[in-house]
């Protein structure tokens, strides 16, 4: 999966949990928690959606690797086969 595709998948999962998020104004390089109203429970829901769609299961120790949308996309892109 390309980083651009991965970013789309990630943002789609995010907007399902936080419908007020506007994909157009989301800054891929700004800390996710600084620009989106999500709590730890919301994050688990986002990760569960990503797991269902991509098969990538983000372990707890890797949460920090998803700090910004772009980092999260890179993380996914690296691990999704094909």
């Amino acid at each position, binding site marked *: 999966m390309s980083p651009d595709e991965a970013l789309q998948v990630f943002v789609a999962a995010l907007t399902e949990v936080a419908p007020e998020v506007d994909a157009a104004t989301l800054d891929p390089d700004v800390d996710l928690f600084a620009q989106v109203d999500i709590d*730890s*429970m919301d994050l688990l829901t986002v990760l569960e959606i990503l797991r269902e769609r991509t098969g990538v299961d983000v372990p707890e120790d890797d949460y920090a690797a998803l700090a910004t949308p772009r980092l999260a996309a890179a993380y996914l892109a690296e691990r999704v086969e094909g």
Partner: protein
Amino acid sequence: MPSLGADMESGLLVEWRIGPGDRVSRGDVIAVVETDKGVIEAEAFVDGTVEQLLVEPGARADVGVPIVRLAGGGESNGPAAAKPAVPVDGSEGASPRVRATPGARRAAERAGVDLADVAGSGGRGAVTEADVERAAGGATPEGDEERRRRALRRSIAALMARSKREIPHYYLAHTVDMTAALALVAARNAGRPPGERLVPTALVLRAVALAAREVPEVNGTVVDGGFVANERVNVGLAVAMRGGGVVAPAIADVDRMDLEEVMSRVREVSGRARRGLLRSSEITDGTITLSALGDRSVEEVHGVIFHPQVALVGAGSILERPWVRDGRVEIVPTLRLSLAADHRASDGRRGGAFLVRVARLLESPEEL
């Protein structure tokens, strides 16, 4: 129409979940009602068979007015002689099966737009307020969401002002070493998919419930100026709503659940509450409240007790701090707990015993 808060005067019936002939049991969700506090799933107070729905979707009913007649249960939610509900002018009932945000439902109601005719652009195809405004061709008055926010803010302010005015609060705080609790969470979550993972708040919720059973002076409500302890422990969990505002839906019988059950309830309840969707029993049945700030916030919260309860436990973000253990200074993850409690029900000695008990349970999490 049930009273879903001390300051509620009326509610808007959004949709029915039952129809004539249906059997309902106490606790079943029978209708969706909108109030200043958000969208609430109203539950039946009694068992019975639905004879007649007395209020149309889209109509507003005052608190105490019957909204449904049950055979074998009488009329629900008020005296039979109360005046009938007055339909809201020009409004249509919201379509029950369309996925839409609460703001969109309100906007659709105001504009007379059927949600089923609107293409949704939100998550999972949900219809958003903007979608409704587009569909209505700009007919929806702007600022409906803003009005909702102001109403919610007024409602919170009224409730908090009443708490501050009537409840003689006292405050205590204590710091807990969370090393063992976090190790338990990490071990438990390893290899589990995100949907089955625990968050530390579930442990705090459980510790509060067990400690509240041991110190009943913090668990209950004030009725007619006097404290009444409750045998059940229904812990309200303060949840920040999307778009602003806070609600504290009660999770019933936390003292009788295991951690897995607590976590699945936390997940379900907070997911709904974040979107402003509560059940009536969650608003009325709480016996104590937990305000947990979660990750990335501040170290301590001094809460306002949720009237008519008598105690609110605050939990800050888990932060690393220097900690003295066996005469040595170490860096450990810590949690700053606070207690706001009502002097009509307890005083500092018992409140302190309660908070120490919560701390001990979190430091020996295998007891949770």
